[in-house]
């Protein structure tokens, strides 16, 4: 196949996928270990209200309202957690359902935007514009560098906030920065993966890597590779078979997860189990 034959929208979607895939996967290592998968899901669903609000306010491209509303939802979770006695799960369920309900009501009132709902729920490679590519590359490049610099403090924070504090880590600041980064990355991945499936790219690659890894360094490296492969192969599959992009990426990641589970059980963990026996 000649490279120049490929449609520009496909190249844009591919570029975003190979940037966002590994980034979501790297973040996911800490998201899963810190039991924040539901948090990620809540801010993704919060984005729907931002998209609807963006259309209502006359934005042709609702990226910024989407990111801002997701940040608002994240801030609301943190504020309610600190200032009320409510359980974190309760707070997130409340904000998730509230945002989705608000978003659907607004979109249903905007007669010419009803078709957008399906596109944002399940992801669409056609919806990735040139500006999205630049935004993803620049912003995610900066976030990727920040994450690699902060891997050690984040690992210590995940192990114990108290120990991290005693070791001189500014725990409060790092917690807020992590939430900010997660919110931006998740909301920017929505165009490709869709609101319903975006969390899977945060959760599945680290889970698959966990099946094969013996330490955190290995899990991070494997997770990056699986995220990259899942994003790239899923986008190509979506283009080739004309299927929705989000589900295609998720199914590739699920396939890798199943292989990792089998390989992990048969080879990686076997010597340890035999030794224990």
């Amino acid at each position, binding site marked *: 196949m000649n490279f120049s034959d490929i449609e520009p929208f496909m190249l844009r979607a591919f570029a975003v996928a190979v940037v966002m895939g590994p980034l979501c996967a790297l973040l996911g290592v800490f998201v*899963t*270990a810190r039991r924040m998968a539901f948090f990620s899901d809540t801010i993704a669903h919060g984005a729907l209200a931002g998209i609807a609000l963006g259309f209502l306010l006359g934005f042709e491209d609702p990226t910024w309202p989407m990111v801002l509303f997701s940040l608002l939802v994240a801030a609301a979770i943190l504020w309610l957690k600190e200032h009320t006695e409510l359980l974190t799960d309760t707070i997130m369920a409340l904000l998730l359902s509230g945002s989705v309900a608000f978003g659907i009501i607004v979109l249903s009132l905007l007669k010419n935007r009803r078709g957008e709902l399906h596109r944002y729920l399940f992801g669409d490679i056609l919806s990735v514009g040139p500006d999205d590519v630049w935004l993803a590359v620049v912003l995610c490049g900066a976030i990727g560098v920040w994450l690699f610099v902060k*891997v050690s403090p984040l690992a210590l924070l995940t192990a114990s906030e108290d120990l991290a504090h*005693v070791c*001189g880590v500014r725990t409060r600041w790092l917690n807020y920065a992590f939430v900010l980064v997660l919110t931006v990355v998740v909301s920017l991945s929505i165009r490709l993966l869709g609101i319903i499936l975006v969390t899977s790219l945060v959760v599945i690659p680290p889970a698959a890597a966990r099946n094969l890894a013996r*330490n955190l360094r*290995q*899990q991070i490296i494997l997770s990056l590779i699986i995220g990259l492969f899942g994003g790239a192969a899923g986008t190509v599959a979506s283009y080739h078979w004309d299927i929705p992009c989000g589900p295609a990426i998720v199914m590739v990641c699920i396939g890798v997860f199943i292989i990792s589970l089998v390989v992990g059980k048969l080879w990686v963990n076997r010597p340890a189990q035999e030794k224990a026996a």
Partner: protein
Amino acid sequence: MSVRDLRVTLGGQAILRGVNLHLHRGQLVALIGPNGSGKTTLLRAMVGLQKPDSGEVKLFGESNLKKALPRVGYVPQRLALDRSFILSVREFLALRLRETQHWFWHRHRDTDDRLRAAMAELGAESLLDRPIAALSGGQLQRVLIIFALLKQPDLLLLDEPTAGVDTPGEQDFYETIAEVHRRHKLTVVLVSHDLSMVYRHASWVYALNGVVCCEGTPEHVMNADSLKEAYGLNVTPYHHHGHSHGPGVTH
């Protein structure tokens, strides 16, 4: 280290109601008291994890705790680790060393040798490549002590270090702490429920119940009247292995 008129309220309840402590270099100090007496809160306030309503904590004469923290080793009661977090003991320990802050990129042989030597000192060398979330209570406490000792602190704070350790391992564990105290010439502050351990190893004891009920050498503090004041219970001396170890608590 000194604590002056420290007051802490949690959930509307006054946990510490004007605590005063003064520690001397090289002591092994035990904080004893019933559940809810503020032992853990006091220890957390000493390292800035708990903000006091009023009062002052000074470490090494420094009231800015952040400046003093590099000279402090802290061992929390437990780590709430998810089993999916596959941080190995080697990686966990490396996080304590400034020169390995970027351990993801570089793995130095010197660092490995240093970690192996630290683990060997407490007989835990075989745990280096185990995931920290898969360790037993006793193994984890040893690793946490090694973590705390890596930067050669002057002060070691331990919050109920045998909370997750089985009964037979407790005595052995306290022997280890006493040995660490002797060998490293540290000041150790230890929260403990084990009165016989306090009697055997501590050089100074604070009995706490919102305030310091009494303080002194174990022989001075651990008598029926002092413990009754701290615990609100009747206490009698008990005998173990044919000789007196200190008081036991009876209702």
